[in-house]
């Protein structure tokens, strides 16, 4: 699994991991120290880049295989001629998804994360400096298929869109509340399959999201039925319009990330513990 997570440390391998760490921890500490709050600083830097170019950046998240790339393909076909799109693809391995997008004549940059099960702001920064952002309207970032880690990493984007495909079960928001609370929009995908599934209810899926006190809109669509994509296409146009209006007022938009880029905030209360010097101890 993931190097930054700690999710790969199990009771079984922990003694090994511990033994690997050098005892003179000072230098090692410095090496490790550039992750999460640095991620948030990097994310703000990315957002400034994006805002300078007036591009709306949408982060697509879901379980593996919920139809993120298929939705992008269908969206690109629909928007051809109206909006200028580019895509950043995140996957553990392969450039398949970027190739699928490039086949449609759209710029796509593939980030292969290797072991990390999410994108972070540094990876996205590296990608954005290799892309031409001028004249772009919307940049989609397709995150690594995973309903856990990606929710905790601000990439500098503006909107979180979370897909829930009808083959996954309608209780996913209840099982992954941190992810689904981060949604600015939830898309119920692959609705063409609904007739074959007797136990997925779009209403229950929406209720499960509402149970998290989320007011995010919920739309239903199928990438295989482009005629039903209107609501999603309208949402995108609206989001872009809102974004451009904000930028005109020198404001930006931040996604509904679980914690408003405040990590380890708050005043620490310090307790100084007087300890007697060794020599005077009884």
């Amino acid at each position, binding site marked *: 699994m*993931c190097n930054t*997570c700690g999710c790969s440390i199990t009771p079984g391998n922990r003694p090994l991991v511990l033994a690997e760490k050098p005892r003179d921890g000072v230098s090692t500490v410095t090496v490790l120290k550039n992750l999460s709050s640095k991620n948030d600083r990097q994310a703000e830097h990315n957002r400034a880049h994006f805002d300078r170019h007036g591009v709306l950046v949408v982060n697509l998240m879901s379980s593996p295989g919920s139809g993120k790339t298929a939705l992008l393909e269908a969206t690109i076909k629909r928007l051809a001629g109206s909006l200028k799109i580019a895509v950043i693809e995140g996957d553990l391995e392969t450039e398949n998804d970027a190739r699928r997008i490039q086949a449609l004549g759209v710029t796509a940059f593939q980030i292969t994360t290797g072991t990390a099960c999410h994108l972070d702001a540094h990876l996205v920064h590296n990608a954005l400096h290799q892309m031409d952002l001028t004249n772009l309207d919307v940049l989609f970032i397709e995150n690594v298929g995973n309903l856990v880690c990606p929710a905790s990493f601000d990439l500098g984007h503006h909107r979180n869109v979370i897909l829930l495909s009808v083959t996954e079960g309608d209780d996913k928001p209840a099982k992954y509340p*941190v992810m689904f609370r981060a949604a600015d929009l939830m898309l119920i995908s692959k609705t063409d399959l609904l007739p074959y599934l007797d136990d997925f209810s779009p209403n229950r899926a929406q209720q499960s999201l509402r149970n998290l006190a989320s007011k995010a809109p919920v739309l239903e669509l199928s990438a295989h039925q482009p005629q039903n994509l209107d609501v999603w296409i309208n949402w995108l146009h609206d989001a872009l319009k809102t974004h451009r209006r904000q930028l005109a007022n020198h404001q930006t938009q931040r996604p509904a990330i679980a914690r408003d880029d405040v990590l380890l905030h708050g005043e620490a209360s*310090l307790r100084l513990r007087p300890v007697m010097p060794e020599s005077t101890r009884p």
Partner: protein
Amino acid sequence: MHELSLCDDLLGQVLALGRQHQARSIVGITVHVGGLSGVEPMLLATAFEICRVGTLAEQARLVLEPIPVRVHCNHCGIESETPNNHLQCPVCQSPDTDMVSGDELILARVELDTACV
């Protein structure tokens, strides 16, 4: 699920405090972990065991205080504790609530050993 990097941030702050107060060692660290913080306390505790080796906090006791999710109801005005995936008002069942706590990750307390040098 990025406990290792979070733990490193945490330790960085704690060690800076230790240096600032010329502590001989860090004795205790208390962190408040909200139920919807996205942080798994067990993983954070494990990550801490790894990160603290060789630092001033090598012997420190890490206390992770779970913070339950609490919501304020915009309908009846009552504040209540709720489960992580059921944030409607438990009193009047209104879905119109705002979370008042439960998504935080806060370094709440640091105990330093500052014996005279």
